[in-house]
């Protein structure tokens, strides 16, 4: 395209100077705030060689932290998968008083600071809390042990699946399900063969986000876990603990693991998005063909 052509096609706010200024700014910000820190993590973690990294990661406390983190995620993700799907189903397929309020309430975990959420759980379920003191009589302890960590993680991550599903299910409507029921299908068959395939990718996307947050959650967990090394220490807490012990290499080794999970999550997220657009494009091109 030559100069005269481009000037003729120019629209408001389309001047090349502004365009390049914005691009350069965006790239600079991305490098300074996102890419550099990420690189530093890996550089520091590998600074003393692969051997040291392996040693640090196989440290017994680190291994325990990894195990606990995966355990918490393994409980949180299915719980919120079921909860989020049920909730999305409820608010998109039924009309009842308080429905709008419920949709707003779903966002509370996003609006509340995780530390505040952790404190609330501590006050409610701690040894001196309303529910906690009652449970203590039965010798059950939720706070400062893994059930507490799971509880706050479930709380913090519960909107992800529902948030992904609600707009999609609203847009798709319930006509297909109605068609299914008229054709004699049972409720379970409708869910399995009609609803689930329609929301599959949004569901996977929600799970990916839930998992990423469950693995990385720091604030709420730090309040309720008690940071007992080898017992209630999750990977993000472990990073902080190592750092405070001046074990910089160890801290970066664990951090690199978390960063690795994040990069992997991004890759999966990208793949899911690519799958969705590809299906859409394929259908559109075949339609016009």
């Amino acid at each position, binding site marked *: 395209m030559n100069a005269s052509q481009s000037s003729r096609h120019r629209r408001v706010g389309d001047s090349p100077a502004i365009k390049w200024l914005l691009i350069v700014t965006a790239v600079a910000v991305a490098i300074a705030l996102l890419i550099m820190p990420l690189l530093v993590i890996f550089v520091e973690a590998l600074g003393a060689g692969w051997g040291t990294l392996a040693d640090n990661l196989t440290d017994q406390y680190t291994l325990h932290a990894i195990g606990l983190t995966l355990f918490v995620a393994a409980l949180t993700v299915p719980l919120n998968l079921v909860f989020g799907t049920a909730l999305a189903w409820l608010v998109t397929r039924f009309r009842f008083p308080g429905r709008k309020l419920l949709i707003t309430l779903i966002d509370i975990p996003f609006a509340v600071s995780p530390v505040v959420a952790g404190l609330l759980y501590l006050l409610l379920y701690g040894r001196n809390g309303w529910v906690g003191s009652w449970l203590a009589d039965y010798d059950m302890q939720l706070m400062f042990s893994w059930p507490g960590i799971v509880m706050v993680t479930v709380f913090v991550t519960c909107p992800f699946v529902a948030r992904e599903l609600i707009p999609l299910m609203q847009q798709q409507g319930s006509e297909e399900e*109605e068609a*299914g029921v*008229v*054709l004699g*299908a*049972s409720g379970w068959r409708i869910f399995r063969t*009609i609803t689930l395939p329609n929301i599959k990718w949004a569901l996977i996307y929600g799970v990916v986000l839930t998992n990423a947050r469950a693995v990385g959650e720091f604030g709420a967990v730090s309040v309720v876990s008690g940071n007992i090394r080898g017992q209630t220490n999750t990977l993000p807490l472990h990073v902080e603990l190592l750092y405070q012990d001046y074990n910089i290499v160890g801290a970066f080794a664990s951090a690199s693991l978390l960063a690795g999970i994040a990069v992997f999550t991004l890759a999966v997220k990208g793949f899911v998005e690519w799958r969705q657009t590809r299906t859409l494009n394929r259908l559109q091109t075949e*339609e016009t063909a």
Partner: protein
Amino acid sequence: MTITVDGINKRFGQFQALNNVSLNIPEGKLTALLGPSGSGKTTLLRIIAGLESADSGRVAFSGKDVTKLHVRDRNIGFVFQHYALFRHMTVAQNIAFGLESLPRKQRPPKAEIQKRVSELLDMIQLPHLAQRFPAQLSGGQKQRVALARSIATRPKILLLDEPFGALDAKVRKDLRRWLRNLHDEFHFTSIFVTHDQEEALELSDQVVVMSQGNVEQVNEPTELYARPDSRFVFDFLGQVNVLSGEVKHGSLNQGNARVTLPGIQHQGSAQLYLRPHEVRLATGPAEHANLPLRIEAVSLIGSEVRVELRPEGWASEGSDNIWEVGISHAEFNNQRPTRGDLRYAVPEVGHLFTGKDTQPVTVSWAESESLPRVRLIN
């Protein structure tokens, strides 16, 4: 299977969607539920299907009360306005869905399901699209697949919610004819919802006209068109020209418009309803009518020439103060009416409404004017 609807009430919040509706749908007939949007026709259809429950009243199929029967067990075919095809299933899988949903004991073997699906694909003339997905089909194709899917389990009752609403005119006409043939071949008891009066009159054996949650009139299409019971049905079924005025000594007057009404004793306000084909255009006033009008537009498209006229020295009711008269092409070629010409409407048959909720009285002037002419009656 006959369908009986008895005293159905349905309320959505403050809105009374159906108001004590009772209906009899005869076996093997194609019935249209016709009405403007918000008249409750779709709600009624969904209650018959069992997709919606009524606040009170009952629904019976061939005398058997199904009010409490789950939609799943009613064994009806239902065609949705926007097709509601399962988007992630192929055309063949869509059609097979009903058969595969049957309880294990009644479910035919795989091979038989496949055979049935290919029969249905042949019937809708889309065997080559069996492996396509709904998004790859045109609107008309989607609707045919939806129909095939709904009749795969051989239901006795077929319910269609605005089946042609989302299609363009040409496809709509083809599908209409095709549905009529399908109905005649399989002898369903069918009900379809439409807001298109032409569609209702052309396709159905019986039309149920609805308005604001009430059934206004039930009749065969020809009877309904010839003898509407109420102003609403008159207005809703086709174009109508209205002269509203005062009757004095057997003559209806408004401004400088005047029509004599032979055999009418009524005194006071009244409205004369005239169909476009019940009026002739003349160059001067007739003995029994003085209805001067000025030509606004002439439309030559169709089997008749449609002339739109604006009253001169009086006013019409509704329809933007425009009268519409249909004349034959032969007549058009003789008279050459053009925009701006003055013409006089000469009614031949009319329908006089007096009072509020009365049925109309048919008035005929056939003897008083004897100008035989050849014209197309629609």
